């Protein structure tokens, strides 16, 4: 512990300091515009520190006695979260007129939650994981309740209650894992499970080798499902999405989901990466993937509210990502162990661009119309041509058509599934993609084929337009030329101890 630890943890520390600065500046000056731009510029610091750390690639990545591991995997996500936070803050600039007085707090809470996510992506120890998880969830619950509407407070309450129940389940699972292995550090858990397997302490007739571990892992995974917006904890999503402020919902669906997948990937590979266990949880995730995709898709079909529709869409997208989690080690040829997590990380990064384009487009339009129904988007192709185009690009990428990143993500995920002997799972994924075409195209059809309800033009706000443009550009760029992102995802995943070791 010393200067080296502080240097490794500097992106997280900078983000925490930025969150505090935003709150203090807001309190001292009361000029929320200043806070907004100050924190946007301030976000450069954690981003620059992450890039510097990625380039330096220190040999010893463990921080504070192994509580966190700042490797390239966590730095990849750190950069992703910083970018998402910047986009969300930009999008809140105009939207925030609805909560004028608390704009400074809004920025502070977003940054606090981002700090939690950055810690979550690097946490290497069960207690740290739990505390960071709550640091991401609690500010979001407050943010969801930010609008002065009934639905908003309701969204915050539902989110908080379900977050509480899921983290209680998660904790119960973590405590059993701790009780079974006697340690909370992921690398030590891995070592002790290895010792137990070697000494014949595992019962091969029981899943995961013992009932203690079975209970621990099953409870922990169902707790994490809340973060991922996956079955069996997906029911909070539509209500929270419909009621909450749209920028917060965008933050929730992109950053929060990525943080959940980051921590699940790290736990699975660093602590439970041994082949005997991997077969078991792979089967578990295969089932969860099918249930999540199908449930999200079928529920999305009859929706009339765009935000609610995107809520169900985010559930089904989580299902596609779960396919990548299931795709491990059935064939333990050298490449296939990287392919699964690599496809998940690539999917998450692509999904960040895609979904931000969609949400920022929705914000740009609904800021003016104040109408979240699909009917309210009628004729937007004429009323707001640029925004509608960017929004359509995002929707096509969510659907997974070329030349967008959504297409590439699905190819890589399905490919990883087929290579690890889960062809049926890939098939289920393809079928679900076809179903999802119905509701994504419905929004596009409303924008381009239906007559507008009024002739008033909707101009695109410059800062919001730039953010939406970057997101949509990324969604197309990484669809045409995915190699850079794919390579970064591979480097990130290879720095996870369980992946590189085997």
């Amino acid at each position: 512990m010393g200067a080296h630890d502080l240097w490794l943890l500097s992106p997280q520390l900078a983000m925490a300091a930025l969150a505090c600065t935003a709150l203090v500046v807001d309190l001292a000056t009361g000029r929320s515009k200043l806070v907004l731009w100050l924190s946007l510029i301030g976000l450069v610091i954690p981003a620059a520190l992450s890039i510097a750390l990625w380039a330096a690639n220190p040999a010893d990545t463990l921080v504070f006695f192994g509580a966190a591991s700042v490797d390239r995997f966590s730095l990849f996500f750190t950069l992703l979260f910083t970018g998402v936070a910047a986009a969300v803050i930009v999008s809140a600039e105009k939207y925030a007129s609805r909560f004028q007085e608390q704009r400074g707090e809004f920025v502070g809470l977003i940054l606090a939650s981002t700090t939690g996510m950055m810690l979550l992506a690097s946490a290497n120890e069960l207690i740290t994981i739990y505390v960071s998880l709550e640091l991401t969830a609690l500010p979001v619950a407050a943010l969801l309740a930010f609008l002065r509407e009934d639905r908003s407070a309701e969204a915050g309450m539902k989110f908080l209650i379900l977050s509480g129940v899921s983290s209680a389940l998660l904790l119960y699972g973590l405590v059993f894992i701790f009780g079974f292995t006697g340690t909370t550090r992921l690398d030590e858990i891995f070592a002790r499970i290895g010792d137990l397997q070697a000494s014949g302490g595992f019962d091969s007739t029981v899943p995961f080798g013992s009932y203690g571990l079975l209970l621990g892992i099953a409870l922990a995974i169902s707790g994490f499902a809340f973060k991922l917006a996956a079955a069996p904890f997906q029911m909070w999503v539509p209500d929270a999405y419909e009621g909450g402020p749209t920028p917060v919902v965008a933050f929730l669906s992109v950053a929060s989901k990525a943080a959940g997948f980051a921590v699940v990937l790290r736990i699975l590979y660093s602590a439970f990466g041994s082949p005997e266990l991997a077969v078991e949880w792979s089967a578990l995730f295969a089932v969860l993937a099918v249930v999540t995709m199908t449930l999200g898709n079928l529920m999305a079909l009859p929706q009339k509210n765009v935000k609610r529709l995107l809520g169900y869409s985010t559930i089904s997208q989580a299902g596609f990502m779960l396919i990548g989690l299931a795709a491990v080690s059935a064939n333990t040829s050298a490449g296939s162990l990287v392919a699964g997590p690599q496809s998940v990380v690539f999917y998450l990064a692509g999904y960040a661009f895609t979904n931000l384009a969609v949400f920022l487009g929705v914000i740009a339009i609904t800021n003016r119309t104040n109408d979240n129904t699909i009917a309210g988007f009628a004729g937007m192709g004429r009323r707001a041509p640029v925004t509608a185009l960017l929004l359509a690009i995002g929707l096509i990428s969510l659907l997974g058509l070329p030349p967008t990143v959504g297409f590439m993500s699905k190819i890589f995920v399905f490919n990883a599934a087929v290579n690890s002997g889960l062809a049926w799972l890939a098939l289920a994924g393809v079928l679900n993609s076809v179903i999802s075409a119905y509701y994504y195209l419905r929004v596009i059809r409303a924008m381009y084929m239906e007559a507008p309800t009024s002739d008033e033009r909707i101009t695109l706000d410059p800062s919001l337009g730039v953010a939406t443009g970057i997101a949509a550009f990324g969604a197309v760029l990484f669809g045409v030329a995915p190699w850079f992102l794919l390579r970064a995802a591979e480097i990130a995943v290879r720095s996870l101890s369980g992946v590189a070791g085997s």
Partner: protein
Amino acid sequence: MNLENVLLVSAVIFGIGLFGVLTRRNVIVVLMSIELMFNAVNLAAIAFARFTVPYSLAGGPVSVTSDAVRQVLTGQAFAVFVIGVAAAEVTLGLALAMAIFRRRETVEVTDLTTARG
């Protein structure tokens, strides 16, 4: 007094909490039930730390004293962190309940149905 008994009590408390969350209609009582689940977890964490034979004593390659001490302390630290975070969670929950009550004069979960598909 052994590990199984304490874990059984913990599981019963956890079950009561979960049952409360699923069946109670008042938001305040739901928050209390969540608190019950957290405390069941605390009980289990401390029991594991106290009763499981430390790995080193079972023949593991780690020095006996420091590892045994660390395991006991880890379980207790776990509980302390859970207590702290649970307090924050309940504070936020009560604040939201107040916000809802001011508007609606009710904190019944069954009345929270504005968001519908």
